[in-house]
């Protein structure tokens, strides 16, 4: 039996490399100053899907919801072996929280036949780990979170080992299922040189200036599909700002440039002042 996998991947700012310049004066993040990368654990999700395809045969579709620039992660997925890539982009997706995001992604997944949906455990920009389980609920399927090893796939049964923090658990479930994958699961493969040569010119319509270019790319099989909310037949009530129950009340910056060392005298008043400073900037308290 072969398996159809859909992998949900996200382009994220490389939060490990945030420096002073990456923060605006008002404490918001200057996304433009941050390198954008393939969310690390989504690479583990993709790798697991590719391994399933290698072992049992099947098809791997990669989807991302984001700005046209997010097409880059789709190309990266194509270089590694994905069969199909889809960009979900629409102005009306803006300001979606995890609930709206998972709703939109579930509408997209429904457009494809699938046995297994794979997500990373969490995206490093928000570290929420919510989109996977929420998408599973919206799709009406079960979930296995924190997958550290796929033990078996047989017919419509999957057996996996999940990390439960202070130990592990082996579970079996019926397909279709959604998995969230952790970094221990595998070592993601690198891009294949042959596929890189082939797909480096692949583009989404949003990245093209000219409609005519799209036609030419399509003929070469290099046009990456692009879906909007109309195509998804999504109910706008559940998308974007309107579909997002959570709102931001306030954002505060906590960046202290690493090399800025303060000398603190080993005296009670000096230590009191230090503790006060740490309470004020939310480090403690």
């Amino acid at each position: 039996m072969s398996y159809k996998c859909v992998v949900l991947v996200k382009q994220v700012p490389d939060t490990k490399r945030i420096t002073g310049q990456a923060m605006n004066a008002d404490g918001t993040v200057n996304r433009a100053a941050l390198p954008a990368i393939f969310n690390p654990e989504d690479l583990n999700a993709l790798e697991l899907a590719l391994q399933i395809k290698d072992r049992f045969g099947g098809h791997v579709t990669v989807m991302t919801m984001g700005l046209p620039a997010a097409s880059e992660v789709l190309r990266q997925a194509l270089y590694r072996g994905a069969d199909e890539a889809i960009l979900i982009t629409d102005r009306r997706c803006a300001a979606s929280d995890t609930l709206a995001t998972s709703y939109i992604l579930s509408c997209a997944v429904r457009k494809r036949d699938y046995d297994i949906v794979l997500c990373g455990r969490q995206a490093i920009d928000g570290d929420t780990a919510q989109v996977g389980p929420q998408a599973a609920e919206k799709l009406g399927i079960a979930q296995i979170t924190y997958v550290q090893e796929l033990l078996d796939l047989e017919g419509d049964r999957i057996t996996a080992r999940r990390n439960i923090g202070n130990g592990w658990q082996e579970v079996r479930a019926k397909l279709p299922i959604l998995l969230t994958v952790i970094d221990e699961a595998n070592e993601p493969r690198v891009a294949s040189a042959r596929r890189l040569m082939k797909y480096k010119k692949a583009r989404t319509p949003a990245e093209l200036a000219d409609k005519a270019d799209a036609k030419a790319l399509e003929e070469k099989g290099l046009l990456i599909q692009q879906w909007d909310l109309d195509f998804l037949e999504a109910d706008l009530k559940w998308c974007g700002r309107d579909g997002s129950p959570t709102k931001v009340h306030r954002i505060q910056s906590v960046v202290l440039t690493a090399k800025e060392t303060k000398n603190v005298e080993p005296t009670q008043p000096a230590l009191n002042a230090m503790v006060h400073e740490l309470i004020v900037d939310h480090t403690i308290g």
Partner: protein
Amino acid sequence: MIEVNTAGEVWVFAEQHAGMLEDTPMELMSKGRELADILKVPLAAVMLGDTCQEMVDCLAHYGADKVYLAEHPLLEHYQSTSYAKVIHDLIHKHKPQIVLYGATPCGRDLAPRVASAVKAGLTADCTDLQIGNHEVAKTGKVYENLLFQIRPAFGGNIIATIINFDRWPQMATVREGVMPMPEPDTHRKAKVVKEKVSLSQEDLALEILREQRQERKVNLKASRIIVAGGAGVGSRENFKQIWDLAHCLGGAPGATRAAVDLGFIDRDHQVGQTGTTVRPSLYIAAGISGAIQHQAGMSESQKIIAINNDPDAPIFNIAHYKILGDLNEVVPMMIKAIKEKA
């Protein structure tokens, strides 16, 4: 979702496995108590399981006014689908205004599933919760007594305060170890509300084949604050200062390999290349030289305070706060400073 219901209760999900309560519900109970008192509503624990009666008293001792008890043989083992179904139904029935979960692997598996089913908001991994008002800039409308869900984002570079003013309940998962454990009051009693559960085998999506849980001595990774001691602490007895400082900050004690090898503390606490890699908001290094193998496990900490009596100790090169002095004097003074602020 449910309507805004300012008379709604504050709920804490009482995570238990095999009849053992986790620490997080107790930690959440101290915060939940505070929130419920400000809102002048009851604090309730919600417990699902097979036979849970024995744990009810414990929840009362830690601050619950009420315990919703959903007992059913099919709830013996935690599973996302069955647990989410029961909690979803309870939310619709009782309309709480706030529901809190520990940000444990179980809580992070369950809460989003519930949030999606209820179509309510959920903020992950909060490190603080407060009650406050929010004014909508455009309309000037003020929403009073909302739950401020405070969490680090962008790899800990910003602190965001999230609210949820129209689609309730207001739900959050709260990072382990950030809320202090309250002192139990063994005289407290809670009202027990037994809930009828209707579940069938179909509600169990997973077959749990095998499971292994180790008794976890310390969870350094989940700690927002780590107080680590090195060989400079001198003895196992003296290491008590490190524990004390960690305790009053709601943090976890860490150690260097040298301290572990000298028998000052168990290996579970070792930070570094061959120990745990941590990225807390605050790392206090006391009597630690700062060898590269130790730095490998903690240099990504957001803030580092180093206490050392050697001005040339390499740890000072990566510290944000440099305290040149004897840890035996500095640590007690820090404890005093923190206790007096609190």
